[in-house]
């Protein structure tokens, strides 16, 4: 039996509201399939299932607000028998009952199903005679109704609730203002924790962006808009490649120690017009070329605005990258998003006086106006030291001097 639980979509989330299921019992589920939509303070999130199997039973109703870790559904692993999973699921459910589950006022039948009956093909469903009659009148399939009565029996009210049009709250996202308020609270908690617990140190380095800018301009001049490259993709790529050599900046500080991230999945800070920000992960960024990385970035930004991020994107980020240069500032010194251990920031690319080797006499230099940007690192001193941080920034600087080489996808060996 495979258990599907409410995922943690970041350290600042402790509960979520199930908006809807996208699968029904009996449906095959493949690895990475989006099977539910969950509302958090940040957005409605498409939640993926990371196991392969057949959906056996849904244990939580839409509209229920449940803590992270709550058992939401069970799946049959390939080859598992229905009866065996029934038995295992019953045990798992019994364990769950002791955990508090906060359900909202029942707009429909919002009570988590106390038993599997009615969800499992072939199991007998208790239906009160009055409810069965009413179901016939209303044209409701009793098999599809989840009972709230004793032992999961379907009552008259359950049938009527099922026939009623869905409550608007099921589909309508919370008003923008209340979402913004919620998000403010969540950000406040995470950032206060960060500054309370994480001994930050900060480093900065001015990086010549002339080669990168020229390379981008040359490539983009011949490209249709659908294939055009973003400067931000080069920055993300440089960070992701550099982190392969400096794992102490990529991961999480947990239980008094550093847990290196499985893979480099930079979270891209995206500010929301309605207030707040999210930093969804761009998975395995180093393995992509700049074209693919640009498309991934565009897709991430678009889906963030449209409110259709996936659960793995919110849970997986191993470091954060913020690019406040868009807003026109020269540099940014970020606050680490716990339990991550570092944040890389980029300021605006601008023309600055830059000393270049004049050739000839040793030490002779010319001053030119060249595109330059400032990269910064905020890092957790428990996990790393300034010397290594300096090497990381220097590596990012050097990588950006050869954009052609940086374009090549990095082969990342499978973790052992």
């Amino acid at each position: 039996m495979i258990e599907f639980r409410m995922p943690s979509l970041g350290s600042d989330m402790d509960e979520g509201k199930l908006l809807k299921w996208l699968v029904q019992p009996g449906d095959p589920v493949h690895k990475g399939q989006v099977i539910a939509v969950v509302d958090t303070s940040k957005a409605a999130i498409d939640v993926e299932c990371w196991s392969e199997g057949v959906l056996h039973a849904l244990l939580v109703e839409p509209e229920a607000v449940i803590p992270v870790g709550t058992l939401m559904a069970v799946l049959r692993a390939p080859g598992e028998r229905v009866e065996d999973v029934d038995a295992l699921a019953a045990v798992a459910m019994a364990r769950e009952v002791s955990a508090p589950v906060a359900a909202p006022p029942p707009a429909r039948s919002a009570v988590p199903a106390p038993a599997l009956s009615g969800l499992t093909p072939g199991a007998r469903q208790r239906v009160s005679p009055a409810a069965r009659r009413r179901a016939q009148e209303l044209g409701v399939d009793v098999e599809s109704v989840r009972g709230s009565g004793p032992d999961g029996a379907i009552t008259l009210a359950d049938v009527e609730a099922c026939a009623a049009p869905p409550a608007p709250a099921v589909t309508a996202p919370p008003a923008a203002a209340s979402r913004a308020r919620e998000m403010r609270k969540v950000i406040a908690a995470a950032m206060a924790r960060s500054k309370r617990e994480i001994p930050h140190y900060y480093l900065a380095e001015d990086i010549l962006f002339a080669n990168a800018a020229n390379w981008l301009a040359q490539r983009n001049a011949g490209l249709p808009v659908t294939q055009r490259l973003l400067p931000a993709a080069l920055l993300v790529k440089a960070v992701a490649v550099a982190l392969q050599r400096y794992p102490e900046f990529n991961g999480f500080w947990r239980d008094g120690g550093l847990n290196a991230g499985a893979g480099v999945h930079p979270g891209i800070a995206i500010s929301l017009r309605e207030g707040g920000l999210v930093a969804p992960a761009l998975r395995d960024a180093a393995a992509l070329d700049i074209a693919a990385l640009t498309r991934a970035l565009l897709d991430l930004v678009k889906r963030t605005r449209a409110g259709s991020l996936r659960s793995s994107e919110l849970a997986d980020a191993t470091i954060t990258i913020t690019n406040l240069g868009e807003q026109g500032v020269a540099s940014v010194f970020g606050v680490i998003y716990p339990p991550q251990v570092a944040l890389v920031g980029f300021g605006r690319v601008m023309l600055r006086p830059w000393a270049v080797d004049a050739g000839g006499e040793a030490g002779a230099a010319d001053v030119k106006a060249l595109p330059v940007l400032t990269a910064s690192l905020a890092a957790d001193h428990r996990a790393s030291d300034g010397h290594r941080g300096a090497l990381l920034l220097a590596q990012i600087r050097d990588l950006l001097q050869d954009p052609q080489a940086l374009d090549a996808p990095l082969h990342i060996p499978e973790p052992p």
Partner: protein
Amino acid sequence: MNRQAIAEQLLQALTEIAPEIDPKAITPAKLLRQQVDLDSADWLNFLVAVHERLGVDIPDADAPKLSTLDKLIDYCAQRLEADGAPAAH
């Protein structure tokens, strides 16, 4: 395609990439990216959406000049006329 129709398509492209924008609040003569706070990814997504809707592929060299909705409308109208596009898209 007349200016009105082009403007509608551009605004729809804008709300497609940033649903939280109120198109009615946009002043056509003012700087577009500042009014609606588009970052470079939003901007490129917008150009892609314009291409999908109007078939106008805005080259990298031209894009920075198209700073207002009015300028975008003029540019698209010219390009569509030059391409001999039919009046109705």
